[in-house]
């Protein structure tokens, strides 16, 4: 049970000086209060989500297919509006979409350079940086290819590089490594972890791979389905760097998986 401990959202504020700060203030990067989302007059996708994510925290979300994870990220990103409740986010978060969402008329390089172009970074500089980013996702050799010439996993990596090309302090990632083989995924875990540390990013990360969640997260949030609610939160206090196949990671994974299965089964899905 080393991996799981009592939730303590204010661990990095030992003196409690920020304890009464308003949500979205200096210690919380993302705050959701009683957020619900109903599509049209139909599906209730989220129901009363309360969530606080500290600056610099790495939170993973797991839950059944269709439980509202993407909806949650979309709301945090500001692209969708919550039906009710309050959302406050520090700065403008970068969202890596579940479907790659690359611009089909741009090469990989230009896709990755686009956020910098929009931010006004000079051409030489942004192209250099885009080259670096593509190399860091192991795609240094496809800079000139267009999305339709790439494999599924390659597109996902280009999209990752594009997300990293923004200057956002908050990253929202929707199953970013779903189409990658184990080896490539491990490499990208390391890469992401080091970027997160170096830049002090806040990351909200959706995955179906509980082991991946445990590998990366400070905290794993389990969502129920129909409607999406926060069922349980699991702080992961394993020392970093962690490995995907660490036994400790495995045991925490087993525990969360059991809870997840129970949750999914309870909703008859």
């Amino acid at each position, binding site marked *: 049970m080393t991996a799981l401990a009592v939730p303590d959202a204010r661990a990095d504020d030992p003196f409690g000086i920020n304890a009464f700060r308003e949500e979205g203030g200096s210690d919380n990067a993302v705050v959701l209060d009683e957020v619900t989302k109903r599509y049209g007059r139909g599906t209730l996708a989220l129901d009363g989500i309360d969530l606080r994510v500290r600056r610099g925290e790495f939170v993973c979300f797991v839950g059944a297919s269709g439980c509202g994870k993407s909806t949650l990220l979309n709301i945090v990103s500001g692209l969708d509006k919550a039906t009710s409740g309050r959302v406050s986010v520090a700065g403008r978060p970068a969202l890596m*979409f579940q479907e790659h*969402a690359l*611009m*089909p008329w741009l090469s990989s390089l230009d896709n990755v350079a686009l956020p910098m172009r929009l931010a006004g970074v000079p051409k030489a500089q942004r192209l250099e940086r885009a080259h670096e980013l593509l190399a860091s996702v192991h795609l240094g050799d496809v800079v000139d290819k267009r999305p*339709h010439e790439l494999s599924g996993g390659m597109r996902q990596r280009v999209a990752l590089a*594009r997300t990293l*090309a923004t200057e956002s302090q908050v990253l929202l990632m929707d199953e970013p490594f779903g189409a990658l083989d184990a080896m490539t995924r491990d490499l990208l875990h390391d890469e992401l972890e080091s970027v997160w540390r170096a830049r002090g990013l806040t990351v909200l990360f959706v995955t179906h791979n509980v082991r991946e969640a445990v590998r990366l997260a400070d905290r794993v949030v389990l969502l129920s389905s129909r409607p999406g609610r926060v069922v349980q939160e699991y702080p992961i206090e394993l020392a970093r760097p962690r490995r995907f196949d660490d036994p400790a990671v495995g045991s925490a994974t087993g525990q969360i998986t059991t809870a997840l299965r129970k949750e999914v089964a309870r909703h008859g899905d």
Partner: protein
Amino acid sequence: MAIDASLATELKGLDALESATDEAPLAGRVWAQTWPKIAAIGLFVGLWQVVVWFKLKPSYVLPGPGSAFGEFAHQLTQGTFWHATAVTMTRGVVGFLIASVIGLLLGVAVARSKVLRAAIGSLITGLQTMPSIAWFPLAILLFQLSEKAILFVILIGAVPSIANGVISGVDYVPTTLVRAGRNIGARGIALYRHIILPAALPSIVSGLKQGWAFAWRSLLAGELIVAIANRPSLGAFLANSRELGEPSYMLALMIAILLIGVLVDSAFAAVDATMRRRRGVGALS
């Protein structure tokens, strides 16, 4: 096909990578594009000649291809014909460019604003259905007997087409791309410049093509309102050829107009083919 070729070259320059996917050798590709055209023209002219041989209609009503092409060849040696072509082409190109700018802005404005769309969205098509002849009095009222009156008639014809192309293109930009664009920091004009307009480009180009057709037709009709001294024009020639009852002259002018139309379309087709190759669509045929 000169425009076609030079444009294709330019586009290839813009997009050097594409050349790798052109698998067939150049000569073969040119031939594959050319023989069907020759065959189609041959077939058509052949049929026409047969009709004429059988004397189904007297030759002063329907001259044979020989006399039409002969007249066309003769016109090619005439200075006034070239002068008229140059005048009309200049008006057409200038009018089209202005119409493109206005149409683009209008289209984006209407696509963007719900209020504007409700206010004038349907009016745009309404204006488009108004025949040129209805605009002549207004054109003269506003611009007297000047080049501007002709320009006005061109714009009234072409702007709605172009704007409609933009609107329909913008409307059908995949939601994901717009959301992605917004998320990576594209707001306001940048969103249009970098995301929406490129994504809508195919539909915009097809709107521009329709706009050209409208502009050209309106121009040829409009050249009749104002016969400006020493400015011969294809539109006036065409109307006069009809009034003077000279069918082979009229056919020669129609050949010229058709040729210009085909050339312009080839330019559009080249742009379109490049766009499709870039985006990896249209592996259909």
